[in-house]
Every structure is written in C-alpha cells, then in structure tokens.
C-alpha cells in the first residue's frame, strides 16, 4: 500500500470500526474486537506513513475544495506522522484498558462510548495529517464534538455541568478566536497551507502589532492546548470515565491542541519570523506562568484525577513554551514532549483508574500503604511519574533537557529557572504519591496519637480500614497491564529518543 492511501485509510478504518461497534451493539466481545481490530489496522497504516516520512517522502492526499480554493487535504510531515502513530498506538492500549475498566465498573452505554472513541481518533489523525489550516480546523471541531458525549457519559448533574464547560470553552475559543485567526491568516497570506518556513514571512510587518495579535488568537483560540486562562475545561472534563481522561485528556485531545500550536508556529509563522520579530516573547512568559501556576494548584488537589489534570495543564504548557521560544531546540523539545508526556501521563491516568477499580480510592490521602497491596499499579505509577518529572533513564527527561537548551539559545535564562522549579514541584506532587503508597502505613496514627513510622508497617494478614494488608489485591489484569506497558514504553523511549530526534529534525529546517 502506498503511503498516500495509508493516510486516507488511517482515517477511514476507525470510521469502519464505528459501524462495526454499532453493529455488534449486543455482543460485547465482538464489539470490542471491532475496536481492537480497527485499532491494529490503523496503527499499521500510520506506521506505513511514519516509515515513508522517515525516508524523506511527504505523502499527500487532496479530497475536494470546500471553500474558495481551500481543499480538505492531508500531507504527512514528521510532526504529524509522529502524532498520528502515537494516537493510533495508544488507542489500542487504551481500548484494552477500557474493556477492563468499563466492564469492571459496569458502565452503561458502552456501545456509544466505543463509537465516540472511533470518531475521536479519526479526527485526531485528521488533525495530525492536515495539510492546511482549514482541514486542521475542521477536524479540530469534529474532535471537540465527538468527545462531548464521552465527557457527559455518566449523564448526571455533575457530568452535565462538566460537559457544558467543556463544550463552552472549547467551542467558544475555537469559533471566537481560532476561526477568525484562520480566515485572517488566509486573507493575509493568500494561502493556508502548512509550508516549511512559514507562510507569513514578508506578508506582515514583522514589528507591527498584527503578528503578536494573530499569535495570541492561535495560542488562546486553540483551547485544547489549555494555556492558562483557557484551562478550566480540562479539570472539568475529569467527570468522564477514566479511560476517557487517560486517552483523550492526556493524549488525543490535549495533544491535538499543543500539536496544532506547534504546527502553526512552525509551518505558518515560521521560527525565523518569530525569532526576528520577537512577537512570541510575551507568550513565553504566559506559558511559564501557566507551568508554575498549574503545578501549584496540582499540589493542593487531593483528588488524584484532579491533580493529574492540573499536572497536564502544566505539562502542556511546556509544548507551548517550546514553540514560543522560537528556537530549533525549543521546537524539538516541544515536539518530543508531545510523545513523552503522552506515555507518562497516560500511565498515570490508567493507574488512577486501576486504583479506583481495584480499591475504590480516588483521594491521594487515602492511598497510604496501598502500594503494598497493588505493587504493580504503583510501580507503573512510579515510573510514569519519574518520566513526567524528567528523570533519567526515562523518556520524559529528553524534552526537558532540550527545552532548557532552547531557553538558553533564546537567551531566556530565567526560563531555565522556571523549568527547574517546575520539575521540583512535580517531584513534590507526583513522586510523593508512590512513595506514600509504598512506605507509609494506611493508618498513620496509633490510638495514643503516635505517628507510625516505617517500622510500624502493618503485619501481613492484619485487616485495617477494610483492606487486608500484605496480601496482593491488584485491580483486574486488563486495567493493570496497559499502564505497565506504557510505563515500559516510557523507559524504552529514553534509549530510542535519538532516533525520534533524527526523525523530527526536518521540522526545524526552513526548506523541505
């Protein structure tokens, strides 16, 4: 199969899966087989594209013109090929996890759940391969709409409120800011194609107010990137079932957001134009504030999913920061962060779900000592957290390193401090969780008020807080194996980061 066709089919196959899921509404096993089958084929297709792009080709497909010479068109370049492959691969992992979670949890409307997932992944791949701003916008909106039923899955009052905020912010920013930005760009440049080196150079006054204004429209208009203050939709979306949070709000939706920001900065504005004009200078600081503020909020959240959500807001701003630094290293750091953070954060979310399914705990303060009951879950959590913090030997360390280089290149030494401070905060609020789980006893005080130390571990077999300590009581296999797999993936990516780096390198070059 040629890579051109593979692009087209990588979006069509999930939609075939959509009908497959629908068809097997009453036969859960066949239904899930449809999802997994579509996932496997999609992954192969994206890998074909990935391979072709790695060999220097730029496969493309043009469907038809919708408005005034703007076609729905796709063109794979390294950034998009990476994002699409990542999405397709993690979709499979997440589907396996969903089976365990949704069944373990006896959720209703599972068919609708899997159907919406297929549309969401198809549109995320559409965003990844989009060849022009118009196509990107179209799939961006479809992604928002297709995930709305997933966020409101539970259908209760909390889900309705969360859904309202989710749709309100994402639609509001995309229609109110992103759409005019796209049309404006088209009006200025006469084209909306993603072009290496950008399309705005020479078309706008580099020192004028239009450039930073336009950049702002994109930075805030792409609400999925969750740059503060456009972030509240993300914590509110946590009312969704955990697989939705894990895949969409750690990978597909949010990464579609920061991916779009990065792609627009690289292929519409052009790094050179931004570096010369200094238009992005202010946004570097908005991203920096976003990184620190979101981490600070995360530290105060006792609910694990809420803490992870704010951690996501913080980590997403790393990508925005990398884009706005307008240096090659910054952009590379941002691009790697998309992949590395996806694996790490997905691990954490899936662990959170496993803890919920296995032990019915959602508050961090209740997880003391739980590591001895669920060692695999918390082991995976530990690795994922280390990757997010940026500690070797895990994949997450590379983007942090590159971002620091990028900041140094841009002469923004204060940003170095921000990055270091942020990592320390990550240690405090993420690594503390597995440490508490492994080293603390579930009941931290004895009857006479003495704080229990490490020596006072509950003896095996004793029952405390309704849990029999010392005995393993892991969550169902299907909810534990996926996070372990992604955790191992984060470990592997540390060693293969160089290959990915070489693959992505063309995006920093002006020419093709």
């Amino acid at each position: 199969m040629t890579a051109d066709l593979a692009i087209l089919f990588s979006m069509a196959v999930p939609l075939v899966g959509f009908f497959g899921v629908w068809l097997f509404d009453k036969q859960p096993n066949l239904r899930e087989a449809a999802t997994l089958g579509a996932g496997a084929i999609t992954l192969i297709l994206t890998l074909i594209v990935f391979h072709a792009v790695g060999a220097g080709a730029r496969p493309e497909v043009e469907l038809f013109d919708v408005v005034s010479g703007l076609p729905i068109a796709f063109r794979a370049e390294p950034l998009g090929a990476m994002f699409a492959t990542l999405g397709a691969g993690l979709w499979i992992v997440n589907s396996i996890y969903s089976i365990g979670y949704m069944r373990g949890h006896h959720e209703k409307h599972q068919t609708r759940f899997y159907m919406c997932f297929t549309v969401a992944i198809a549109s995320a791949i559409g965003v990844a391969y989009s060849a022009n701003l118009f196509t990107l916008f179209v799939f961006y909106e479809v992604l928002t709409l297709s995930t709305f039923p997933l966020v409101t899955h539970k259908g209760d009052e909390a889900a309705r409120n969360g859904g309202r905020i989710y749709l309100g912010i994402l639609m509001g920013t995309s229609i109110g800011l992103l759409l005019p930005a796209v049309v404006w760009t088209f009006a200025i440049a006469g084209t909306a194609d993603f072009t290496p080196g950008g399309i705005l150079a020479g078309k706008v006054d580099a020192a004028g107010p239009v450039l930073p204004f336009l950049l702002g429209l994109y930075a805030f208009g792409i609400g999925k990137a969750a740059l503060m203050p456009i972030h509240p939709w993300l914590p509110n979306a946590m009312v969704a079932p955990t697989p939705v949070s894990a895949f969409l709000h750690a990978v597909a939706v949010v990464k579609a957001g920061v991916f779009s920001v990065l792609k627009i900065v690289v292929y519409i504005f052009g790094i050179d134009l931004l570096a010369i004009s200094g238009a992005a200078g202010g946004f570097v600081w908005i991203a920096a504030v976003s990184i620190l503020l979101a981490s600070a909020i995360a530290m105060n959240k006792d609910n694990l999913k809420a803490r992870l959500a704010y951690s996501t807001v913080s980590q997403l701003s790393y990508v925005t920061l990398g884009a706005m630094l307008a240096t090659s290293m910054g952009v590379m750091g941002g691009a790697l962060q998309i992949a590395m953070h996806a694996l790490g954060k997905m691990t954490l979310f899936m662990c959170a779900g496993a803890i919920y399914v296995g032990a019915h705990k959602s508050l961090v303060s209740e997880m003391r000592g739980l590591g001895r009951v669920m060692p695999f879950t918390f082991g995976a959590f530990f690795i994922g957290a280390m990757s997010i913090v940026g500690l070797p030997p895990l994949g997450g360390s590379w983007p942090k390193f590159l971002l620091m280089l990028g900041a140094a290149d841009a002469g923004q030494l204060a940003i170095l401090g921000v990055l270091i401070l942020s990592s320390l905060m990550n240690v405090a609020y993420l690594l503390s969780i597995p440490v508490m789980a492994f080293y603390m006893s579930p009941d931290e005080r004895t009857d006479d008020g003495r704080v229990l130390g490490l020596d006072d571990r509950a003896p095996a077999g004793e029952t405390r807080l309704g849990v029999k300590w010392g005995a393993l009581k892991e969550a169902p296999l299907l909810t534990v194996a996926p996070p372990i797999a992604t955790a191992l993936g984060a470990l592997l990516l540390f060693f293969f980061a160089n290959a990915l780096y070489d693959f992505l390198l063309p995006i920093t070059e002006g020419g093709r």
Partner: protein
Amino acid sequence: MTIADQLPVLPIILPLVLAPFAILLRNGRAAHVFAVVVCGAAFAFCAMLLARVTAEGVISYALGDWAPPIGIEYRVDLANALVMLLVSGVATLAAAFSYASIRTEIDDRQLPLFYAAFMICMTGLLGVTVTGDAFNVFVFLEISSLSTYALVALGARVDRRALTAAFNYLVMGTLGATFFVIGLGLIYQATGTLNMADIRAQLSAGPPGAMPNSMVEAAFAFILVGMGLKAAAFPMHLWMPNAYAYAPSAVSAFIAAASTKVAVYVLIRFTFTIFGSDFDFIDAMLTYVLTPIALAGMFFASIVAVFQEDVKRMLAYSSVGQIGYMLLGISFGTEAGLQASLIHIFNHGLMKSALFMAVACVMLRLGVHTCSGFHGLTKRMPFTAAAFIFSGLSLVGVPLTVGFVSKWYLLQAAFDAGRPWAGFLIVASSLIAVVYVGRVIELILLRDPPSEGLLANDVDGNPVREAPLSMLIPMWVLVGANIYFGLRTDLTAEIAGRAAAALMGGAQ
C-alpha cells in the same frame, strides 16, 4: 416559439393558474398531493432555469411578447435563479412535509384552502424574484404577503394568538409595501420607467451630476425601509417572532426559509443593480445605515433568542440575527461581501427550514413547541432529535455544514474588506448562537424525558412515537442538503460568486 423559450414564466404561471383548482378538490389528501406535484414542477422548472442560466447567461423574457421597457420583463440571472431554486425547493419539501402536521392543526375543510394559499404564496415569492420590472415586484410581493397573512392566521385553532400575530404582520407588512410603492412612485417620477434595467440606464444617463437627485435618494430610502420591514431587519422585525411562532408548524418551515430571504434579495437587487454602489449615497447608506442595523440585529436578536422558552420564537429571533449577517455582507459593498450574503440566503433557508420541521414533528407528537417538549428527545424521537441537532449545529456554523460555509465566506469578506473588527463581531455573535442552540441540544441529549405530567405521553395519551415517515423524509432531505452543501460548494459558492460579480458589475 417553443415551450423551452417559455421556461422563465413557467414556475410562476403554473402554480398561479393551478392554485385555485386546489379549492375545488374537496379532499385534503388530494389537495396535498396536488400541491406537492405543482410545487415539484415549479422546482423542476427552477432547476432547469438555473442550469440554463449557468450555461448560457442572463435570460430575458418579455411577458406577452411586449418588449421591455414598455412590457413586463422577466430577467433571470444567477442571483435570482439561485433564490428561486431555494424557494421552490423548500416549498416542495414543506408541502410534502405538511400533511401529517397540518391536518392536526387546522380544520379538515380548510385543507384545500390551505394548499391553495400555500401555492399562491410560493408563486408570489417566485414572481418577486424572477421579475425585471420594479412595479411587478410590488404586485407579486403583495400576492405572497396576502397569502402569508392568511396562512399565519390559520394557526388560530391551535393558538388564538395566531390571529393577533397575523394582524400585526398585516399592519407591518402593508406599511412596508406602502413604503416600497412610494419609493417606486418617486423613481417613476424621476426616470419615467419601471423596468429595472431601464431605470439603471436612465439614472446613469444625462449630464454628470444630474443624478442622483434628492428625489432618487428619497426613493431609495423608502424602498430600504419597505424592504427592511418585509425582511424583518432589526429594528423592523417586531411582526416576525409571533408570526413564526403561532403560524401552523409547516407554514413556519416554509416562510422562515423563503419570505424574508426574498425581501433581502430584492434589497440586493435594488441596491446594486438599480442604483449601484457607484452612487455616493449608496455607499454612505451601506456604511452608516446598513452596517449598524446589521450589527444591532446580530447581537440584539441573538441575545433575545437565548431567553426564549418557546423554541419557535427562539428560531424566529435567530432569523432576525441571521438576516443581520446577510445585511452585513451587503454592507461591505464588495463582491466578496455580496457573495457571502447570497450564500447565506441560500444556506440559512436550508437550516432554518429543517429546524422548523423538527419543531413541527415535536409539535405533532407532544402538542407543544416550548423547550419542555424537547427533554430527552433522543430517547423518544431519535430521528427528529438528530435532525434538530444536525441543523442546529449548522446554524451555529460547525464545519462540514452549510452554516460553516456561510460564516467562512462572511469572515473572509470582512477581512478582505479591511474590516477585521467586523470579523470578530461575526464570531462573537455566533457564540451567542452556540448558547441558544446548545441550550436546546443539551435538553435533547442530556435530560430524561418527563415520566409524568402532560408531556409524558403524546397528545392522544399514547407513548411518544417517532414522527411519521411522510415528515421525516422531507426533513432529512433538508438535513442532507445542510451537509451536502457544507461539503460541496460548487453550486452555492461558485454561483453566488458569479452572481455577485454580475450584480456589482451593474445591470448589463
């Protein structure tokens, strides 16, 4: 002369002559079939007309073989062929759609009268659109308006407020017609002709500076107000929300898509082909009169729509806002703006009609058109609910629907015209549309249907069923059109673009 040469007159003469025969049919079902066939034939003629204009260019047809400017001329170019296609197409679908709904809303013996009035109304609207004679516009406008007053008043059996709504409409509509005809009188005084092309020729002839004189300017002012009333342009829209809300459901679906659009078309025709933007006063009018009216409508009416409990009233206020978009496109005074306006006339007809049809389905089963009837609609009437959601998303302007195409062209026109601020106001106003449409969609998707009380069962006390196929099929044809024309814009955007170029080029 072959019959093919008579094509421009056929969509008008056929329903005009045949409509009275509907009264002779005593049976409502027969009248329904008859109306669908006649409207369908008119649609077929309009489609052929559009195909021919696209291929061959402007068609001029002398009525009764009396050569213009003395005789009445029908002049078909791309702009009016497109509007005619919309009017006759929506009329056919609304007629097909109407039967199951209308027979629960009016007396059986009124059914033949209803269909006769319906056909006359369509004839009038098509006549307004096709004619190249300014006075003929007035004649057809009154034909369509009078029949519309009657159609709205038919809603009285369900809700007596239809009578005051129709009366209000009658007063306002007659005022509008009077203003319009005064304007025509002044033009006739100034130029001595009523043929549109001839008026144009007379206005541009003569020594430089002679035209326009203040009489011509006053004429335009009268025409603007008259058509503004007919088009329900803010703040001349007061008749419209009630007329749409209390008219029989199927009537709302038709007139919401057709009648105000035709008035906007007439405004475009007078502004650009008869007067022309080369006159300074037209330019000034566009900037200082039309722009504020358009913007005020976009915001005021949309905000009012957010607070409506009655979904039909909400849609009516939304129409006032959407007409603001069309006027805004016109007010740029550019080809791109005009193109956007024409596209939106067509597209908005498609979406509003589909939305009103979905409300009609709810009305049929539950007997209400308030928000409370929409709770949990997906669980009771899934196809109706889906139709409302899709066309609602189209109204908001979500990609892959016609609403998005409209908005895209409008935004592009705003940026091209060097008015980025207008672009931002457009998206700001469509965010209000997100709110009022989203509000109903949330009820449809996320609420449970009432399990007790009046709305727990349908009007006959049975469990609520899906609307009949005779309603679902026409509605879904329109929903399909909303999506098809959202993907393929060869027909709408390209024709509208060529039409706009021709309109801006004057009346050649």
